[in-house]
């Protein structure tokens, strides 16, 4: 594995988006992972629709029928991938733009599919496996506990104490080997995470969190997706 890796340098990551006042982080995480996978499969970076997931994806967990994707009221990336396998794929952002509201009817047009899921998997809680899947398959959809993100401005976040209850869906796009930790007087490795709260939040819309001990549950819900190769 390389010591440093960032999918942004390869052109596999679209610009930072803004979910607005809508609990649709899960759709941004899922679409971001498919954007990366589609880039790997086709060589083209396309911005994909989150609103299609908000409006049309009501997929439920097979083992828990009342746990379903519910637009601005929350969802899960893996059930979104299930929906995408069944529906055929995602339209582009341009064809099905984000409004940040739910309650609208589903306007999915199958003839406008811009990217399709071939397969998806969940990755074990092992930082080397997460890094290996990131490098091999592209950006990963992950869950995180966002309690420290409400006040985050920049730097490598490495809280002494952080809950592992996952409440936010984001996109893991890379990692670095040497983020300076002033309190420990040493360089610490970190993950690079794309958020969906606009560019004015964090480090131009990104968050860095230390690697090594599942801080804020960052290693505990990781999924990878592959896209169908099109000409």
């Amino acid at each position: 594995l390389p010591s440093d890796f960032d999918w942004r340098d390869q052109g596999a990551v679209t610009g930072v988006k803004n979910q607005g006042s809508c609990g649709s982080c899960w759709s941004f995480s899922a679409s971001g992972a498919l954007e990366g996978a589609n880039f790997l499969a086709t060589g083209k970076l396309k911005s994909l629709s989150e609103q299609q997931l908000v409006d049309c994806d009501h997929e439920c967990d097979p083992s828990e029928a009342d746990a379903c994707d519910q637009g601005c009221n929350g969802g899960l990336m893996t059930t979104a991938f299930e929906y995408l396998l069944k529906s055929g794929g995602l339209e582009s952002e341009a064809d099905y733009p984000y409004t940040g509201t739910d309650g609208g009817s589903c306007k999915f047009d199958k003839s406008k599919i811009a990217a399709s899921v071939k397969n998806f998997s969940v990755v074990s809680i092992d930082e080397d496996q997460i890094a290996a899947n990131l490098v091999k398959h592209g950006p990963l959809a992950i869950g995180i506990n966002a309690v420290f993100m409400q006040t985050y401005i920049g730097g490598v976040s490495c809280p002494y104490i952080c809950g592992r209850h996952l409440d936010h869906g984001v996109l893991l796009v890379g990692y670095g080997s040497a983020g300076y930790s002033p309190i420990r007087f040493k360089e610490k490795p970190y993950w690079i995470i794309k958020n969906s709260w606009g560019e004015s939040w964090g480090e131009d819309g990104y968050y860095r969190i230390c690697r090594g001990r599942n801080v804020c549950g960052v290693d505990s819900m990781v999924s990878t997706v592959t896209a169908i190769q099109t000409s």
Partner: protein
Amino acid sequence: AEDPLILQVVPDAKEEGGFGGGGGGLGLGAAAVEAHFVSFERRFGRSYASAEERAHRRSVFAANLRRARRHQRLDPGAVHGVTQFSDLTPAEFRRAFLGLRRKKGSVGGSILGSSHEAPILPTND
């Protein structure tokens, strides 16, 4: 052995207690909190429907200044402070900007069972 420094990461009771002066336990006077709040309103384009709503948001903002300082102590490698969410309570923030649904009783990535578990990849060489 790896991290030999031990720092106090929780505030002194004296520091944390009370909102005397309107500074939310920050050692800031009411005027200083008001100045920070005005700067926040300008920066993030906030306008509130009534004076009561503004007063409420200002008190939430003061509490979030205190919270940011707590986060700074617990997370010294990052910078914490005023963000676009500084006039929201933690519950409002969760409702409006989070939204990851967690399956009850699930652990880690094993959400959908073994059929979707990623194969183990080689990480050496």
